[in-house]
């Protein structure tokens, strides 16, 4: 079974702090997605990374794909209460129809 392991599982920080969450696997992926999910809603796509070593920025969020395309990280600068939610990473293989999801990192940003 191919697994995507996310760490930490839970993170509680103060507004203004920086944080990094990780997504690791022993498998190579053709692409990796990050989603954010708020209570009572479906996951919402944040970004897709496809090239080893790729870095993408979305305002205060920085996403990096590992050189070997087996892992990824999400860094949030100066967290805000609106960043609170469940962050999911998901990996896909070339030509496959299925995506593998990690169990998620639940982030709580306190005011």
């Amino acid at each position, binding site marked *: 079974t191919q697994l995507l392991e996310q760490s930490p599982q839970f993170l509680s920080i103060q507004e203004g702090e920086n944080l990094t969450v990780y997504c690791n696997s022993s498998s190579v992926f053709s692409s990796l997605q990050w989603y954010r999910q708020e209570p009572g809603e479906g996951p919402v796509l944040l970004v897709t990374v496809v090239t080893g070593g790729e870095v993408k920025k979305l305002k205060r969020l920085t996403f990096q794909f590992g050189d070997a395309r087996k892992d990824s990280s999400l860094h949030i600068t100066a967290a805000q209460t609106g960043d609170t939610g469940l962050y999911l990473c*998901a990996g896909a293989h070339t030509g496959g129809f299925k995506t593998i999801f990690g169990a998620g990192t639940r982030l709580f940003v306190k005011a």
Partner: protein
Amino acid sequence: DAGITQSPRHKVTETGTPVTLRCHQTENHRYMYWYRQDPGHGLRLIHYSYGVKDTDKGEVSDGYSVSRSKTEDFLLTLESATSSQTSVYFCAIRSSSGYEDEQYFGPGTRLTVT
């Protein structure tokens, strides 16, 4: 917004009864998926469809069946609901533009089996 709706949004049912959840999309996407989400497990694939009447099993398909008679509708049926099927169910479509691995999710159905 990928135009995905799910119905019902909430349902309570008794053990042993059949239950059908509906996913409806308005943008003619070929690929549709059913996931369940449980604490500590993330999203797990139940079944998926790659066209009308073309479906396949995911990693947790036991006790579930699906049907897709029209492009826009993907139905998930619990043949005889059990308490272990209490979960939040999400339908998703696969992007037809941008990166092909991207998925867009419906709002979810919270199912409680008593």
